[in-house]
Each structure stands twice: as structure tokens, then as C-alpha cells.
């Protein structure tokens, strides 16, 4: 695979002390990692912070990355996913502490994104701008449980194969497929409720 060979070459150059190689790695992968983070956490700010964290972690552990062991993209996605788990748990804890402090926050930021999904019932005709549909789908995605969300993001948005996803999530392939089915179906149900009509 072209991509894997290029990545392996870049990593080798990078570990050998080539700064340009690191720049190229960042150049080639930052958009993809940002997209995973953005689709998972929902907010651009958090996604940006998380993407930086991913690269810092990558940078620190690049030397320990075993070129023989697996695809670079799988490795990078694993780092990303682990940080997303950390982020999710942290923000969940924060939300719990917050709800103890203030019964009901008027602050919009205090509200989980999942509750900010627009509830306008719109007919899914061709005139509805794809941008708006995108926003709605993105909002609905945030309502999925994290296990289902990450599965469909990696499969349908990142086009990873089931085996790679199983490696990243450290679950059997059968579990991956089942989560993808449930994630897709749950998303469709959420959106059908929003549109009150089957697309």
C-alpha cells in the first residue's frame, strides 16, 4: 500500500532526526485527525485542542512505534481514540460536578451538545441545503452513545475496514460490525424523529 509505505518512510526519517519529515506527517494527518475529533466531540474548539494533544502524544511516542507491527494510520487512530475516551470521561465527570454545583445551568456551554440538536421538523426535499442537513446529522451523531459513535465515525466517515477498527477499539470484529449496525440504525431513528419522515 502506497500510503503505508510513505508513512513508514516518514516515520523512519522523523526518528532519524529529520524535522521536515515531522512537518510532513503533521501536514498529511492533521486534517484527518481533526475530523475524527470534531465528529466525535462535536465542537470545533475541543476538536482543535484534542488534535494538538494527539500530535504531542504522537511526537513523544514516535520512537516507540513499531513499523513492523501495524499500519501507521491504525496507530495514529488508536492514539486519537484513547484521547477521545479520556476526554469523554473527563467531561462526563465535569458535567456531573457541574450538575451538583448548579441545579440547572442557563449557560449554553454547560448544556451537553446532544441537547442542542435542532428540533425543527424540515422536509428532506432537495431544496434543504446540504449544509443544514450536515449540521443536523452532525448534531444527531452527538446523541449516539460513544461506543456506537466511534464505530460509525471510523467506518462511514474515515472508511476504515472492520479489522482496523477492531484493532483500534480492541474488540472483536463481530462486535465492531454489530456496533456499526446499531449506530447507523440509531442515527436514522434520531433523524427520522427530527424530520418526522423517512428520508
Amino acid at each position, binding site marked *: 500500500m502506497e500510503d503505508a509505505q510513505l508513512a513508514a518512510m516518514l516515520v523512519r526519517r522523523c526518528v532519524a532526526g529529520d524535522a521536515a519529515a515531522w512537518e510532513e506527517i503533521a501536514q498529511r494527518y492533521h486534517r484527518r485527525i481533526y475530523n475524527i475529533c470534531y465528529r466525535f466531540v462535536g465542537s470545533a474548539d475541543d476538536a482543535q485542542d484534542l488534535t494538538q494533544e494527539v500530535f504531542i502524544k504522537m511526537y513523544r511516542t514516535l520512537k516507540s512505534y513499531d513499523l513492523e507491527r501495524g499500519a501507521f494510520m491504525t496507530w495514529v487512530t488508536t492514539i486519537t481514540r484513547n484521547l477521545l475516551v479520556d476526554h469523554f470521561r*473527563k467531561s462526563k465527570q465535569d458535567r456531573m460536578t457541574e450538575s451538583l454545583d448548579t441545579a440547572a445551568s442557563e449557560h449554553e456551554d454547560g448544556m451537553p451538545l446532544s441537547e442542542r440538536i435542532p428540533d425543527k421538523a424540515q422536509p428532506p426535499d432537495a431544496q434543504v441545503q446540504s449544509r443544514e442537513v450536515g449540521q443536523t446529522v452532525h448534531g444527531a451523531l452527538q446523541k449516539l452513545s460513544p461506543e456506537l459513535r466511534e464505530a460509525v465515525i471510523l467506518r462511514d466517515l474515515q472508511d476504515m475496514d472492520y479489522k482496523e477498527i477492531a484493532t483500534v477499539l480492541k474488540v472483536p470484529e463481530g462486535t465492531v460490525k454489530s456496533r456499526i449496525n446499531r449506530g447507523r440504525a440509531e442515527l436514522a431513528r434520531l433523524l427520522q424523529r427530527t424530520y418526522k419522515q423517512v428520508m
Partner: protein
Amino acid sequence: MSGQPKNGMQCAEFDALLSDALDGNLSGQKFDNFQSHSRSCAVCGPLMAEAEAGRRYLKSLEPVEAPPHLLENILVATSGIDSFRLASAARAGGQISSVGDTWFDRLQEWAGTLVSPVIAVARQPRFAMSFGMAFFSLSISLSLAGVKLSNVRHADLRPSAIKRTYYETSGRVVKYYENIRFVYEIESRVREFKRATTPAEPAPQDQDKGKSPKNNSSEHQEQNQQRNYSQGENQPMLASSPNDPPVVMSMDTNRRYS
């Protein structure tokens, strides 16, 4: 889902084949069985329709553009690690890992041009703050140690004079706070204060002493660590504590946890 076989296929098997079917990777007898199960099963039929619709929704999502400064920020943040490593290696005895040399230098040099104006700005309030804190701590400890601030008021407040006052009284202060960390804090603040007020002096070796060397060992376990979203509810935050972000990075990011 019932385990009842319908048309030669159980619901569990249908579930296992569904994603392949939607990918268009099912054929032959398997595909026929799959099709007839989806038509006859009240659970799997709707599941397939929903999964198909959900897949279409997801596929309609376009990749988003990364924010304009993300790449820059990444490079600056990671070269911040370099300068830190350099500094700690120098402190440890001038040994820099053989891998690093050229590329640490080059990255640091490159980042330096980008970052140094920012750092220069950030240093001003930091040192002003240190000065304020040092004087505040000093005045509290002096008054507690029996030195009235009113006596000092008319004294020379030039840095050197303050330094002298400090050394003259620190003996007394130490007696009061012999076992209290506070003293060390005052002393380090005054040291920092001295450094800030005497720029002509050669830079001390321990400029970065606030930062302790990063523990990298956890990162090597990273890949083998099993993580899930619900575990660790009542665990300490250990597993979720990321490494301290480097100074450079935290300056231009607004870290939120909501």
C-alpha cells in the same frame, strides 16, 4: 432478537452479515438467505432499513476543513517539547540524545522565530506577577517575624536594598517557619525576583525548574491499554490525566471541558 431461524438464517447471523451486505459484499446463497430473512423477520427487516438510511446520512457528511492555524499550532506545540527536552538534557549534564541533535536544533530554531515574540510578551506580566508575589510574601513574613512594614516604608526600595533586607531578616524568618514549605517558596520567589531585576547576570541554569521532567513510561503502555467510556467512574483520574501541556501550547488555546 429471537434466536429463531427464519429462512435458514438466525437473527444473530443476519446482524453479522448486515454491514457486509450494505457494503455490497454478499453474494450467492448467503445473499439469498439474507434477503429472504430481511423480508420475513419483523426485527431484522426494519433494522436493515434503518441501518441503510443511517449509513446514507453518515456518507452525506463532508469532511470539514481544519482550522487555519491548527497545523502551525501543532508544530509550535511539538517544538515546545523539543526546547523543553533540550533544556532538561542540558541540565542533566549536557547530554542530548543522539537522535535529537540536528533536528532538535533546527526545530527549536524554527520555532524560536515564531514563538519568541509571544514568550517575550508573556514574560512581562509573569515577572511583574512574581515581583508582586515576592514582595507580598516577603512583607507578610517580615511582619510575622516582627519587622514592622512601616519601618521599611522609608527604606530604600531598590532591588538591591530589598535583597539586603531579605538576607538580613531571612535568618529570623527561618526560625519561625523552619519546617514550613512557605519559606522555600519565598526564597524561590526572591530568587526569581532577583533574576528578573538583574538582566545583566548570566541566565541561571534552573530557569525551567518549575517543570518537572515528564514521565514517559505511561505512554509506552498506551497502545495496549484497554479503554472504554464507562470504566473509571469511581477510579482516580489517573488514566485520564494527559501530560502537562507545554507552556507554549497553553498560551493560545482555550481549554474547555464541557
